[in-house]
C-alpha cells in the first residue's frame, strides 16, 4: 500500500439548515484502489460525494486531487481535472441515442466551438470519427453495442446503469465515483458491473463507490471507509471493517434506556 494518494479530503463540513450532514470529515483514496464509502443512512456519504464532484460547495475544509485543491471549483472544471461521477438514479439524456450520450462526453472537442464547426468541418469530422470509434469501443466493453442507435429513454433500468458507467468511461478519467452502482440492479448485472470495475482498476483507474450492498462492497473493494454522523468512523479492509464492533454499533445503533 505505498501508492500515492489521488484524493484527499480534509476536515470537510457541510450544514443544511442547521443540521451537519458532513461534520469535520477527513479521508483519502489511494491511486489504483477500489475504495468503498459505506455507512448507515444519513451518514453523509452522498453529501461528501457531491462535494468532491463540485455539485455542492463545502462550508469548510479542503479537497485535494493529486495535491491540487479542487473545492470551490464548479462541476465541469472538476470533471476536466479527471474526476467523473455516475448518478444513483440513472440520468440518461432521454431523447438522444445511446451513441450520442457517449459522444457528448470527451473533453476539449474542437467541434464544440461554433466557429470551428462552421469553418473547419473537416477537422471536426476527423475528431468525430475518433470519438465515434472510442464510443464503439466503450459500448462493446459494456455490451450495449447492439443498442447504439436506440434512444436512451427506451433502455431498461439495468441498461441505463451500464450507460452511466459507459458515459464516465468515455472521458477516460483517473478517478471514478460511482453512486450506488448496485441499487435496483439484479444479481447477474451486479456481477457484470463488479467485473467491469475490477478490470478497469487493473487498467489503472481508481474508484470510489458509495454502496449499500455489502456483498458488492466485499466483492470488489480493497479498502472501505465507514462514515457515521458525518464523520469517518473507521477504515480498513472489507473483512476487518465488517467485524469491527464500532461499525456494527453504527449500523445497529445502541439501545436507549427506553421503555
Amino acid at each position, binding site marked *: 500500500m505505498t501508492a500515492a494518494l489521488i484524493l484527499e479530503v480534509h476536515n470537510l463540513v457541510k450544514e443544511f439548515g*442547521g*443540521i451537519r450532514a458532513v461534520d469535520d470529515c477527513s479521508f483519502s483514496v489511494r491511486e489504483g484502489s477500489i475504495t468503498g464509502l459505506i455507512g*448507515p*443512512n*444519513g451518514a453523509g456519504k452522498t453529501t461528501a460525494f457531491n462535494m468532491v464532484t463540485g455539485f455542492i460547495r463545502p462550508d469548510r475544509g479542503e479537497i485535494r486531487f493529486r495535491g491540487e485543491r479542487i473545492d470551490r471549483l464548479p462541476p465541469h472544471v472538476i470533471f476536466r481535472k479527471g474526476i467523473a461521477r455516475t448518478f444513483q438514479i440513472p440520468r440518461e439524456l432521454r431523447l438522444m441515442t445511446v451513441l450520442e450520450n457517449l459522444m457528448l462526453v470527451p473533453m476539449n472537442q474542437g467541434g464544440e466551438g461554433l466557429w470551428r464547426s462552421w469553418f473547419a468541418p473537416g477537422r471536426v469530422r476527423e475528431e468525430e470519427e475518433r470519438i465515434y470509434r472510442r464510443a464503439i469501443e466503450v459500448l462493446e466493453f459494456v455490451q450495449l453495442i447492439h443498442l447504439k442507435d436506440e434512444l436512451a429513454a427506451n433502455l*431498461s*433500468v439495468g441498461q441505463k446503469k451500464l450507460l452511466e458507467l459507459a458515459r464516465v468511461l468515455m472521458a477516460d478519467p483517473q478517478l471514478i465515483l460511482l453512486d*450506488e452502482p448496485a*441499487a*435496483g440492479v439484479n444479481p447477474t448485472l451486479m456481477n457484470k458491473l463488479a467485473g467491469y470495475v475490477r478490470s478497469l482498476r487493473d487498467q489503472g483507474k481508481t474508484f470510489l463507490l458509495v454502496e*449499500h*450492498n*455489502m*456483498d458488492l*462492497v*466485499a466483492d470488489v473493494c480493497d479498502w472501505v471507509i465507514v462514515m457515521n454522523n458525518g464523520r469517518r468512523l473507521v477504515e480498513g479492509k472489507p473483512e476487518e471493517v*465488517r467485524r469491527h464492533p464500532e*461499525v*456494527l454499533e453504527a*449500523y*445497529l*445503533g*445502541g*439501545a*436507549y*434506556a*427506553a*421503555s
Partner: protein
Amino acid sequence: MALLEVSGLRAGYAEVDILHGVQLTVQAGEIVCVVGPNGAGKSTLMKAIFGLVPVRAGRIVFQGEDITGLGPAQIVRRGMCYVPQNNNVFPSLTVEENLEMGAFIHPGDFRQKMEEMFELFPILKERRRQKAGNMSGGQQQMVAMARALMLDPKLLLLDEPTAGLSPKFAELVLEKVVEINQRGVSVLMIEQNARAGLAISHRGYVLTMGRNRLDDTGHNLMANEEVGRLFLGG
C-alpha cells in the same frame, strides 16, 4: 384477525422491483419494528402499504378489508396514518395549523383532539403559534406525529422517526411512540437504530434486499447475533 396483513408484496419504482414478496402482520395493540440494512426496501414497504408506490403483486389487508391499490387519501379515511421520514411538517404553518391539517378530512371539531395532543406533547402547546419550520428537528418530529394522530388512527406508520436526531431527542421520540401505543394506537415503524427500535417493539422483522429474513419478538431479535451479520452482509 390481524389489524394489518401484508402478503407476497412485490413493489418498486419505474420497472425495478424493490420488494420481492414481503409478508408482514401487525396485530391490534402492537408496536412492530422493521429493521434491515440500507437499501433493503423498508421505506418502499411502508410507502407501498400506504399506496404511495404501485403494488405489482400481493395483498394488503387492513381491518379485514383489502386496501391493495387504494391511494393515500382513501387509506387515511380507513384509519391509517403515515409520517414520512423527511419533510414531514408544513414549515410555514404554525404548530396548531399543522395539527389542523392532520384532521383535514374530519368535518367536526378538532379542538379536543388537539388538546389531547398537547397533553401528549407538552412542548407543542408552548409553541402552538410558532411556525413548524422554525423548530428543531426533534420538535418537528413531534409535530409530525401529532399531525398524523389527529385523525385517531388505528395504525400509525412511522418512517425512521429518530433519523437525524441527537441521541437525547431520539430517546424522547421513542418514549413517545410507546406512550402513543399505550393509548391504543398500533404502530408499524422503520428504525435505523435497530437495537433501540426493537427494544420498544413487541415484534420485529428483518428485511434484506427486499425479502423477509428474520422475524421474532423484539427482544429475541435484539439478542440475535445473526442480525448484525445480515446488516453487514456475508
